[in-house]
């Protein structure tokens, strides 16, 4: 029977099956405004110990960023992507994790790795031009700093999924920049995580720019947190400079993941105060006026104001925290000023579990070259 014939018989068309959304999108939607605690009435409830801890960590982080940037000027670091201005988000990401949890940093997130307890010198080997990963990721539960953007996100999903299959109570927190959310791996990771209900927290640090490209040219979404809804996970929009809010939102997301409720996407709205890296000229794509607005919303200022107003810290207390950070920086400077001991023969180690015949030949060639060099040096 053709469609025309069907019409002639005037039988009522069969209605399509009723459609319903599979998930109610409303609970997944982020707040209209980034979630804030500092500077609001809610701050009065914030635990004094947590406030002090966050303050000390953020001040340390600021000093760490400054020291690492200085080391690039001395040629001790090949490059450093600073997180000055973003310390609250970096520190909160590290602090909400248990020891057994995993952190999956992007190339910028050295500070999060250090705040998690990694030796700063080990954390800097990639950026120094020493070995790509200067630490044992399994020992510290910190994945290698990932230079390709967003590719570490599916790793976090796979690891969290594997942990759950093994019956382990492990959460993975994966960090990515605003630019990285445009990469395919970001989408695939979110989708896998949601479908598998993997215990993962995705933390997007929207620091305004991907090198020079502003967010408006990166996405047309209402916010990056809104991207969560399409995958079926909640999106949370947070003031990334508010360390207390960051800590609360991430801790909630981690708890949710641990309890088996699946992944969360957190967008931290923040600002990169320094240039993209020491090699970048930020004056080409942004104005001083814009930077000044964010300077007034500095994560250290926000915490200091709250602590002072509540009488939880005084001048001496502030000085003590700063002195502590100074000591850390001096130690870092001193250790980074020593030349690393590198063995060229290590080039052939760990390409495969066992060297291939080809690598054995090439190792022998390099050995001979090194021996000749050494002899030549002595002659």
């Amino acid at each position, binding site marked *: 029977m053709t469609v025309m014939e069907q019409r002639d018989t005037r039988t009522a068309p069969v209605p399509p099956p009723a459609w319903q959304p599979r998930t109610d999108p409303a609970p997944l939607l982020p707040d209209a405004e980034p979630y804030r605690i500092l500077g609001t009435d809610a701050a009065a409830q914030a635990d004094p110990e947590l406030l002090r801890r966050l303050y000390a960590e953020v001040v340390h982080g600021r000093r760490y960023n400054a020291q690492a940037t200085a080391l690039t000027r001395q040629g001790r670091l090949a490059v450093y992507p600073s997180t000055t201005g973003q310390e609250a988000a970096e520190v909160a990401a590290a602090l909400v994790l248990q020891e057994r949890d995993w952190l999956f940093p992007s190339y910028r997130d050295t500070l999060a790795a250090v705040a998690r307890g990694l030796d700063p010198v080990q954390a800097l080997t990639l950026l120094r031009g020493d070995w790509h990963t200067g630490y044992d990721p399994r020992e510290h539960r910190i994945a290698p700093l990932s230079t*390709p953007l967003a590719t570490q996100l599916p790793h976090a999903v796979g690891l969290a*999924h594997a942990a759950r299959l093994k019956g382990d109570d492990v959460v993975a927190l994966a960090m990515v920049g605003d630019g990285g959310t445009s990469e395919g*791996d970001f989408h695939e990771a979110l989708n896998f995580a949601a479908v598998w209900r993997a215990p993962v927290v995705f933390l997007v640090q929207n620091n305004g720019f991907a090198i020079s490209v502003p967010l408006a040219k990166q996405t047309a979404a209402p916010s990056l947190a809104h991207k969560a809804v399409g995958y079926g996970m909640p999106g949370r929009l947070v003031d990334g400079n508010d360390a207390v809010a960051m800590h609360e939102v991430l801790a909630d997301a981690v708890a949710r993941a641990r309890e088996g409720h699946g992944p969360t996407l957190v967008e931290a709205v923040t600002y990169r105060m320094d240039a993209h890296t020491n090699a970048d000229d930020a004056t080409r794509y942004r104005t001083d006026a814009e930077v000044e607005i964010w300077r007034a919303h500095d994560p250290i200022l926000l915490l200091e104001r709250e602590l002072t107003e509540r009488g939880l810290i005084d001048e001496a207390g502030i000085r003590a925290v700063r002195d502590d950070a100074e000591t850390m920086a001096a130690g870092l400077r001193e250790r980074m000023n020593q030349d690393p001991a590198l063995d060229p023969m290590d080039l052939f*180690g*760990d390409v495969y579990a066992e060297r291939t015949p080809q690598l054995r030949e090439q190792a022998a060639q390099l050995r001979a070259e090194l021996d000749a060099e050494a002899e030549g040096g002595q002659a």
Partner: protein
Amino acid sequence: MTTVAKPSAAGSVKPATMAQALGRALRDAMAEDPSVHVMGEDVGTLGGVFRITDGLAKEFGEDRCTDTPLAEAGILGTAVGMAMYGLRPVVEMQFDAFAYPAFEQLVSHVARMRNRTRGALPMPLTVRIPYGGGIGGVEHHSDSSEAYYMATPGLTVVTPATVADAYGLLRQSIASDDPVVFLEPKRLYWSKDTWNPERPTDVEPIGTAVVRRPGTGATLITYGPSLPVCLEAAEAAQAEGWDLEVIDLRSLVPFDDATVAASVRRTGRAVVVHESTGFGGPGGEIAARITERCFHHLQAPVLRVAGFDIPYPPPMLERHHLPGVDRVLDAVARLQWDQ
């Protein structure tokens, strides 16, 4: 490397298809080692589009044989994380050309994770890729992508040509602590030959080439889908007075220079045969290695018989593209360089 135990099931030498042997290898690996997980598109309920994973989800559950979302980078990327946590994922890519979205993960992470972490994070995962032409597949279903993988340090690249190797090499790949790109010549999936299910892992280790037919006049060096072509050509050449040796490489990385060079030194002549393009293809690398090792023994330049340097052609024309027996014989004829 974990050792591969020999299954105790009784049985004698009997015929089987390559597809059956691959499925059996996956099953046995999963039964023996609970950390082995199979994942990919349609590998669960359907058993994969080639049915290699048939029955695995039923036997081991969907947590161990998982139908993933349709996203190759996501499949391989999550497999990386699973391997970081101590599992041994075996990933199926549905067809050769659909592995390309996952190429970034393969090159940027899978291949170099061990090296960049100085041994702390090995990647014991296997990526199974049905590859090559000859099955009348439409566009993107017939690529020979082995040169891309060969060019990536850190990857082991394996391709079986026999039923016994399909089983044995896959078991070895899964047991390997390094990532293996396991290239399955899909036009041999239904080829039958005999194997011994009693001692199915009794094959040479990865990295070893095998002489499939001894000869004295010239060496044909090949692998995967082109092995039957070369064996047939060798039979045909016999009538014309050429006694050809045929080497099945089995593994492209690591490469067995020793077996290849020993053969070519004996025969003095070599032809490399594969489906993949000649320009920038595996044959160029192999010919160069032979020249470097056997120059004084060579009676003729090392020749290559390869696919044309074109995107894989439509199925109605693929027989003109794929190296067949006649092209191999033509090359052998050209080896009479000095006459």
